C-alpha cells in the first residue's frame, strides 16, 4: 500500500481539474482514477518513477558516405544518438562490439549503418544477420530493404530460412548482400553447404547477432559453438568478420558476447536516446480467500486495469504468461470493452502460433494505430517493430527481471508520460516481488550464462565442424585449447566418426568418416523444432502450429485449444504425423493438464550430510537423474469462476529427460519424530520443497521454469528409485529442467545452507494461516491426507518444523528472526 507522500505524488501528476462533460483520456487521467479508487490504490504496492532523459545526440559521422547522409536526412535523422555513433565507430574500425541499450533505442541502426557503409564502398561485401526467430528476420529484412533503397544500394537483403522458396535460396547464395537467417538454419542449412556459399563467406565483413540475451543456457552454448564453426569457415574462405551483437539489458553483456566468440568485445551500453517520464507500478491483487491465501487472479486484475487504459484511449500492450493466458485475457477484454462500444477489432492477440501473414497484419495495424490494445506472449518481447505504446500491463512476473524491463520498454514515447504495471499472481516468486518490490529496480538484471565447452554440446559441434572442413593439427576452433581440440578429435576417431591420416607433407589430418550428416542430428534448442500443425476439421485448414513440447499439455485429445479468442476442442491427435484435428466449440470451461514426474537416479556425484537441530543428519546429494514426465489427465476449469468442474484422461507417450538434480533426503527417524502419519509428513515435505524451489529460483536469479521439483517416498511403493542408491527415505528433488542441465542444481548444492534457510523464512513470513500457493503450495489434493493433516496441526506448521530442523535453527532463534 502507498503512503501519503506517494499518494500526493499521484495527485500532482493528474490533470488539475476534471471536466465532467469531457471523457477523460490519457495516461495521467487513468493514474488519477486509479488513485481515486481505493479498490485499486489499496493494492498498489509499489510506485516508482523513472525520470525522463534528454538523450545525447552526435552529428552523423563524416566517414559515412554521402548517400547515407542524404538518406538519413530524408528520414529526418539529422544526427545519431551517442550510443549509435559509438557503435558505428567501433564497427567501422573492425572491433567486435555489443550494444546493450534499452528497448526502442535504435539498436538496429547501430548495425545497419556500418553494413550499409561497407556495401556502398564495395558492393561485393557481404553481411550475415542472425535472429532467434523467423518473424524477426522478416521484420528486419523489410526495414533493411527500405534503407538500402533510400541509400541507392542495390545489394539484396534476403531472408534464408525454412520458409524461403528454392529460387530465392539461389538468390540468397549468389546475390544477397545481407543474408538474414537464424542460428538453426546457419547450423543445418548453410555451414554444412558452405562451398555453395563461397561468395558469402569469402566477402563476409560483418556478422550481426541480434537479441543476444535470448542465447542463454543450452541454446547459447550451442550458438557459441556454431559461431566457432562460422569463424572457421569464414577464415577458410579468406574472411575475418567483425561481430556486432545487440542485446537487451542484461547483467553481463560484454562477458556474454565475449564468451560467444572467445574474443574480447567492446561494450556500448550508455543509451543516448531521449525517454519520457515513466511510472512503474506493482499491483498485487486483493486476497479473496484469506484462509487459503488466494488472491484474485492476476489475469482478471490485468484485464480490469487494461480495460481502464483502453477506455481512456491509451494504447496498451498486455503481456500474458502463456498462449492460453493470452487467449483468455483477449476473450475477457473484448467482452468487457464491448459494453463500452469498443469494437473487438481494436483488441488483438499476438503470439507464437499465429501464421506469419496474420502476424504481419497485426504488427502493421498496431503501428498505424488501428489496434488499440494487443495481448501478447513473450513473442512481442523481442524487437518486432510495433512502434511505441503508452502503457504496458504485465500479467504475472515473466521469470526474470531482464524480461520485466524488456516488456516495460514496450511503452514509452519520447516526451509523454508512460505507464508500466506489473500485476503479480499468487505464485511464490510473484509474491516475493510483491513483498520486496524494490528488488525490481535494485537487484539489477540477470546474467546470461553459457558454457561453450559443455562437453556434450562441444563434441556435437566438433563433428559438424569436421564434416564441414577436415581438421589439421594446428587448426584452431574458437578459443578451445589446441591440445583439448586434438583430444576431442581423437575421441571422435576412437568412436569411428573421424579418420586420421597423414598428409603428404606429414601433417596429421582428421576427416569426417561417417555416413550420417551430423548437423541433422543436433538440435540447437532444447525444444524440438518439429512443430505440430493444428487443423480445423470444419474446413481442413491449418489454423496454427505448436512446438512439440507444448503439445502434451495443450493439444491432448479433448483439450480446449484457444485461438484468436475462439475455442476449439481437440478431437484427434495424430502424434506420429504431428497433426492435431480440432473443431470449434463454445464451452464454458477450459482445460488444464495434470502432470506426474518420476525420477530415477543414474549416477551420484556428490553426497554429504546436512546436520539438523535435532541431532539427526539429513542426506544431500547431487547427480544425474532420468526424469519421466507423464500427463496423467486434465482438469476442466470454468471460465470466470475458475472452479474445477471435471476431469478427463489423457493417453500420450511419456517425455523423458536426462538432467542434473540436487536432492535432500529426510531420514526415517526424523519422519518418526514428527509424530504424524507418513503420508502427512511427505505432503508437508512437498510444501517445503515448493518453498525451496521458489527461493532457489530467486537466489540463483533464474527463471523458476528452468527448475523443477518433486518429492518421492520409496516406502509408499508408488515410486521406484534406482537400486543401489540408498534413498530409502522421503526425498526432495530440485532439478535443472533443461536436458543435460545447465548447472543450476550444482549451485543449489553449493548454496544449500542459505537456500534451505531462505525456504524456511519464506514459509515463516508468509501471512497465510495454513499455507497458501505463495509459500508451500497446495496439498496433493488427497482428501484422506488433508483430513489426517488436520489432526496433526496444519500442513504449514509441519512444513515449518521440517524447515526449522533442516536449517538447524532452534525455534527461539527463529522467533527472533520472525519478529
Amino acid at each position: 500500500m502507498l503512503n501519503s507522500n506517494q499518494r500526493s505524488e499521484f495527485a500532482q501528476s493528474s490533470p488539475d481539474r476534471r471536466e465532467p462533460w469531457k471523457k477523460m483520456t490519457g495516461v495521467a487521467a487513468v493514474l488519477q482514477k486509479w488513485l481515486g479508487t481505493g479498490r485499486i490504490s489499496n493494492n498498489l504496492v509499489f510506485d516508482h518513477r523513472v525520470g525522463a532523459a534528454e538523450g545525447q545526440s552526435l552529428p552523423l559521422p563524416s566517414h559515412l558516405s554521402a548517400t547515407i547522409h542524404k538518406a538519413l536526412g530524408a528520414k529526418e535523422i539529422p544526427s545519431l544518438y551517442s550510443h549509435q555513433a559509438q557503435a558505428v565507430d567501433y564497427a567501422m574500425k573492425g572491433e567486435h562490439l555489443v550494444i546493450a541499450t534499452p528497448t526502442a533505442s535504435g539498436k538496429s541502426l547501430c548495425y545497419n549503418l556500418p553494413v550499409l557503409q561497407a556495401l556502398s564502398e564495395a558492393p561485393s561485401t557481404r553481411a550475415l544477420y542472425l535472429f532467434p526467430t523467423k518473424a524477426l528476420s522478416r521484420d528486419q529484412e523489410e526495414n533493411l530493404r527500405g534503407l538500402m533503397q533510400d541509400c541507392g544500394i542495390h545489394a539484396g537483403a534476403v531472408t534464408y530460412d525454412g520458409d524461403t522458396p528454392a529460387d530465392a535460396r539461389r538468390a540468397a547464395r549468389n546475390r544477397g548482400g545481407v543474408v538474414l537467417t537464424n542460428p538453426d538454419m546457419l547450423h543445418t542449412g548453410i555451414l554444412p553447404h558452405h562451398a555453395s556459399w563461397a561468395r558469402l563467406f569469402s566477402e563476409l565483413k560483418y556478422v550481426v547477432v541480434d537479441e543476444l540475451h535470448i542465447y542463454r543456457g543450452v541454446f547459447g552454448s550451442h550458438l557459441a559453438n556454431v559461431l566457432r564453426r562460422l569463424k572457421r569457415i569464414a577464415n577458410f574462405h579468406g574472411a575475418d568478420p567483425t561481430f556486432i551483437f545487440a542485446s537487451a539489458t542484461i547483467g553481463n553483456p560484454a562477458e556474454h558476447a565475449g564468451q560467444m566468440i572467445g574474443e574480447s568485445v567492446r561494450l556500448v551500453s550508455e543509451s543516448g536516446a531521449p525517454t519520457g517520464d515513466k511510472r512503474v507500478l506493482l499491483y498485487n491483487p486483493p486476497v479473496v480467500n484469506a484462509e487459503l491465501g488466494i488472491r484474485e487472479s492476476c489475469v482478471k486484475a490485468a484485464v480490469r486495469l487494461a480495460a481502464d487504459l483502453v477506455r481512456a484511449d491509451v494504447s496498451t500492450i498486455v503481456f500474458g504468461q502463456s498462449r492460453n493466458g493470452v487467449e483468455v485475457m483477449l476473450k475477457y477484454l473484448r467482452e468487457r470493452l464491448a459494453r463500452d462500444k469498443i469494437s473487438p477489432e481494436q483488441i488483438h492477440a499476438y503470439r507464437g502460433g499465429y501464421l506469419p501473414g496474420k502476424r504481419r497484419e497485426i504488427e502493421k495495424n498496431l503501428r498505424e494505430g488501428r489496434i488499440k490494445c494487443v495481448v501478447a506472449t513473450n513473442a512481442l518481447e523481442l524487437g518486432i517493430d510495433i512502434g511505441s505504446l503508452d502503457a504496458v500491463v504485465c500479467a504475472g512476473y515473466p521469470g526474470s527481471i531482464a524480461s520485466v524491463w524488456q516488456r516495460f520498454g514496450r511503452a514509452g514515447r519520447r516526451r509523454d508520460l508512460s505507464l508500466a504495471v506489473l500485476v503479480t499472481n499468487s505464485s511464490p516468486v510473484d509474491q516475493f516481488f510483491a513483498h520486496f518490490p524494490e528488488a525490481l529496480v535494485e537487484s539489477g538484471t540477470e546474467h546470461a550464462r553459457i558454457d561453450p565447452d559443455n562437453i556434450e554440446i562441444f563434441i556435437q559441434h566438433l563433428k559438424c565442424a569436421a564434416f564441414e572442413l577436415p581438421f589439421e593439427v594446428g587448426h584452431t576452433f574458437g578459443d578451445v585449447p589446441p591440445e583439448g581440440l586434438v583430444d576431442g578429435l581423437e575421441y571422435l576417431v576412437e568412436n569411428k566418426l573421424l579418420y586420421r591420416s597423414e598428409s603428404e607433407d606429414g601433417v596429421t589430418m582428421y576427416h569426417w568418416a561417417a555416413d550420417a550428416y551430423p548437423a541433422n542430428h543436433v538440435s540447437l534448442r532444447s525444444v524440438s523444432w518439429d512443430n505440430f500443425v493444428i487443423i480445423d476439421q470444419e474446413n481442413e485448414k491449418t489454423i496454427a502450429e505448436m512446438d512439440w513440447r507444448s503439445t502434451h499439455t495443450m493439444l491432448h485429445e479433448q483439450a480446449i485449444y484457444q485461438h484468436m479468442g475462439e475455442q476449439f476442442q481437440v478431437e484427434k491427435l495424430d502424434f506420429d504425423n504431428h497433426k492435431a484435428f480440432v473443431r470449434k466449440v463454445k464451452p464454458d470451461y477450459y482445460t488444464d493438464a495434470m502432470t506426474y514426474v518420476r525420477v530415477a537416479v543414474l549416477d551420484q556425484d556428490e553426497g554429504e550430510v546436512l546436520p539438523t537441530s535435532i541431532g539427526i543428519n539429513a542426506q544431500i546429494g547431487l547427480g544425474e537423474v532420468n526424469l519421466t514426465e507423464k500427463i496423467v489427465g486434465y482438469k476442466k476449469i470454468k471460465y470466470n469462476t475458475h472452479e474445477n468442474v471435471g476431469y478427463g484422461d489423457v493417453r500420450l507417450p511419456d517425455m523423458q529427460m536426462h538432467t542434473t538434480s540436487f536432492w535432500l533426503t529426510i531420514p526415517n527417524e526424523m519422519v518418526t519424530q514428527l509424530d504424524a502419519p507418513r503420508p502427512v509428513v511427505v505432503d508437508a515435505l512437498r510444501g517445503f520443497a515448493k518453498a525451496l524451489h521458489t527461493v532457489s529460483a530467486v537466489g540463483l536469479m533464474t527463471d523458476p521454469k528452468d527448475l523443477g521439483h518433486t518429492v518421492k517416498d520409496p516406502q509408499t511403493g508408488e515410486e521406484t528409485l534406482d537400486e543401489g542408491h540408498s534413498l530409502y527415505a522421503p526425498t526432495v528433488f530440485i532439478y535443472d529442467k533443461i536436458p543435460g542441465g545447465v548447472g543450476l542444481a550444482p549451485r543449489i548444492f553449493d548454496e544449500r545452507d542459505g537456500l534451505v534457510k531462505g525456504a524456511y523464512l519464506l514459509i515463516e513470513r508468509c501471512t497465510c494461516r495454513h499455507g497458501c500457493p505463495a509459500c508451500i503450495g497446495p496439498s496433493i489434493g488427497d482428501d484422506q491426507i488433508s483430513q489426517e493433516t488436520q489432526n496433526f496441526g496444519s500442513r504449514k506448521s509441519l512444513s515449518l518444523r521440517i524447515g526449522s530442523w533442516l536449517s538447524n535453527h532452534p525455534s527461539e532463534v527463529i522467533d527472533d528472526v520472525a519478529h
Partner: protein
Amino acid sequence: MSHIKRRLARLNGSGGRQEDEAPKTISAKSSGGALDGVKLAQFRGRLRGLGRGKRNEDSSLIADIERVDLPGVEENFGQSKIQIVRETFHGKASHGDFMVDSLWRDYPKLGNFLNGADLGENIGPNVLFLDTETTGLAGGTGTIPFMIGLGYFQGGTFNTEQLILRQPGQEKPILRYVAEKIEAADALITFNGKSYDLPLIRSRCVLGRVKLREPGLHLDLLHGCRRIFGGITTDGRLTTLERDILGFIREDDIPGAEIPEAYFEFLRSGETKKIHQIAKHNLWDLLAMAALMNASGLYTHKPQSHDDARVWLAVAKLNRRLSWDTDAIERAKEVCACSDAANVALQGALLLAQMYRRQKLYRDAADCLEMILAKDDGAFDSAPLNEAHLVLAKIYEHQLKDLTKALHYARLSPPLEERHLSQKRVSRIESKMMRLQVEA
C-alpha cells in the same frame, strides 16, 4: 573429482564469476599459459567423462592400411599418384540388349529430347560419362566422392577409368584429373548428376581449391529418361531402367545404401573386398548410361514394340514441347492408330486435338477424338474420357456451334470441372438452345 564436479567448477567459476565487469580478455590467444593449462585439464576431464562406459576400446582397428588388394593400379599424374581402374570395351560390346557404342549419333533429335530443350545441334561422340560413389547420400560439403567413374569413346572403343581415393586427404589429384576431363569433353552425361554428382564435385573442388570449369553441356539422363520412358517404367531409378529397358539384371550388386559404410570399413581395416564390388557397381552404372543413350535414341526413332505406344506418346509430347508441331501431329496420329492400347490412343487423340485446336483445325480436333471414342468398349479410364468429353463440349459450343452435340458432351463431362461450373455449362448451353428455338 568427478566429471560433473569439474563441469560445475567451471560453471561456478569462470562461467559465472566475472559478473560485474567485462573481462579484459577472454580469448585463448591472449590468455596466459596457466589459464590454458587449467582449461585444458577441465576439457580433458570432461572428455573422459563423456566416453564413460561407451567407449569403443578396440581402437587398434585404425592401423596402417594395406592397399595391396585395391582394384586397379597406381598411376602417375603430375607430381602425384592416382589409383585407377581402366577397362576397354571393343566394337560389339553390349549391356543387356543394347550396344555400348555411340550409335546415338544417328538420331539427331536425341540430345534435344534428353535435354528437354532445343540444343540447336546434335551431340557428338566427344562426351564424358560420369558417376560417383560417395561417403554419404545426404550431401553436404563433408561428403566425399571416394570413387569417380569416367567413361568416353575413343576410336571404336568405350573406355572407362575409375579413380579411387586411397584415403581422405589425397583427393586433390583426382579432382584435378576429373576437372581436366570435364573441360575436354563437349558434353557431360550423368544420371542425377545435376543435383547430386556435379554439385558434390564442385564443393570438393572449392574445398581442395581446384579450378573446375562448368561442362559445356550437361545431359542428366535421370530427367531425360523420365521424359521418354516415364510411361513404361515403375520408377526412374537407373537399375529399373536397366532392367526394364536394357534387359540387364545385375547379379551380386552391392546395395547403394551399403556403399558409404563399406568405404569406412576399408579405411578402418584395409578390407578391399567390397571396394571391388563397388567398382563393379560403378562400372555397371557407366555402361548402363552409355547403353541407355542408344536405347533412348532407338526408342525415340521408331517404336520398338506395341508396348511402346506410351514411349511414342512421350515422343509426341516432346516434339510439342520443342515446338516441332508437324512432327508432334504425325507422332500423335500414330499413337491414335495404335489399336491395342485404348487409353494410350485416347491420350494421343487428346494431344492431337490440342495440336489441331492450336492450329484452329476444330473439325479435325473433334473428329480425332470422336473416332477414338467410337471404339469405346468400356476400357477407357475416366479421367481422360471426361477430359475428351469436356474438350468436345467446348469445341461444339464455341467453335463448331453444334449445341445439341455440345449439350450431349457437357452432360457427360461433369466430374472434371468444379461441379457448379459444369452445371453452369449445361444450363448455359440449354438456354442458348432455348433462345435459338424461340428465334426460330
